[in-house]
């Protein structure tokens, strides 16, 4: 069970949140979409980093303020290293 600090409401039990999977995946712009190949679409839609280590991912405070935000979490220790708002770039972290 994780204790997640919503940037808007503070620390809350994992039960209040829903997982949003890998973050920082930019949706192709309308212009890019005109020329994208099937392989590029597959890359955007399905391919994931799935790292063993720090994962930059999205969560939503579904049973709270309903805001989306980003979390840097370690996928072996489950340690939440950093919580940051939507739109902010992934933080530079020392390799864990």
């Amino acid at each position: 069970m994780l204790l997640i600090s919503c940037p808007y409401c503070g620390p809350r039990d994992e039960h209040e949140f829903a997982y949003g999977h890998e973050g920082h995946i930019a949706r192709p712009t309308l212009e890019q979409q005109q020329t994208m190949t099937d392989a590029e679409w597959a890359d955007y839609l399905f391919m994931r980093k799935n790292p063993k280590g720090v994962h930059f991912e999205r969560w939503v405070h579904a049973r709270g303020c309903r805001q989306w935000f980003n979390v840097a979490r370690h996928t072996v220790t489950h340690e939440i290293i950093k919580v940051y708002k939507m739109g902010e770039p992934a933080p530079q972290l020392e390799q864990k």
Partner: protein
Amino acid sequence: MKQTYSIFTLVRNALSYHKDWQEAWRSPAPKPEYDVIVIGGGGHGLATAYYLAKEHGITNVAVLEKGWIGGGNTGRNTTIVRSNYLWDESAHLYEHSLKLFEGLTQDLNYNVMFSQRGLMNLAHTQHDMQALRRRVYAIQLNGIDSEILTPEQIKEMVPILDCSTSARYPIMGASLQRRGGVARHDAVAWGFARKADERGVDIIQNCEVTGFKIENGVVKGVETTRGFIGAKKVGIVVAGHSGVLAGMAGFRLPVESHPLQALVSEPIKPILNTVVMSPQVHVYVSQSDKGELVLGAGIDAYTSYAQVGSPFIIENQLNALTDLFPCFGRLRMLRQWGGIVDTCPDASPIIGKTPVENLFLNCGWGTGGFKATPGSGNVFAHTIARGEPHPLAVPFALERFSTGYLIDEHGAAGVAH
């Protein structure tokens, strides 16, 4: 030549207090080069090596396992075996595997304790019943055994199920695959290991692959904790770690790794002689030969490599179990554990080539690949040996994520494993 296992060898060895049994497989030092290296000593990797040797005459093969064989999901699953999948592609693949399971104990001369005690899927609502009928008819059209049971028939098979209309989750019917059941997971790994070893395959434990040697897009070998090992062809069969290995080879996969948990109760007298699943209530349970109830839980939402899941998942699981079987309410649970499963967006596996030449991939079995162990190894061995996918594996290529030819088996694999 390997000693065969039989009543006679058992008696003969009893006379010498079981001190003279031959080792089941050797523990050789790695050779400098192999024709084929299989990464991952789970059931699927060991089966791959076995069929490479048996059906394709390729015996200069190594299975590299970072821990001990069968220590991954193979030794952590709830051992349910069935082939009641909706789509033709999956039905044929899993049925191929079920058929191999039916002859596996004889083929391997190793008792995998395959028990075809039947497998029941409960329906609790009108919609469940409609979906169930569609599934059963699709399965029958593929020539696979499947039937629909009435509540009366269910009650006869599983008297402890409350089939009255006042039950918390009323039971309106069920599907039954009589040829489904359970098998001994460790025995499947050990049986394949022993027979592969007999045919010359080197099984190398405590040997973790840490990188690939790739020249001009062609794989030449693997870096390991026991040094570099050359190979003409390499197969990745590492379940939860597929993304990590793909990363080493420079590509990504449509796979996410999640913890999946299971637990067993204290042993009790025989009470459940089939496998009962309820996708709606989220229960799948059977009783082991030792008398323990074996039940699986759900996955954690987030990705993880920790081989432990959250306690609240277990709590939910026990709530669901006692909703369906109030009589289990006072049972104590003995052990609980987790494995890391490799889930795909369409809940179907990936078998075939990769962007790197001579590097092959078998993964994405997620929460339900134990049943596929012999079939998966069989078609993957063919794919590696010929350099072209086995006909049953063709639809499961990585390319399906670009072509859009997804094989959505969430209905067959979402809760049921």
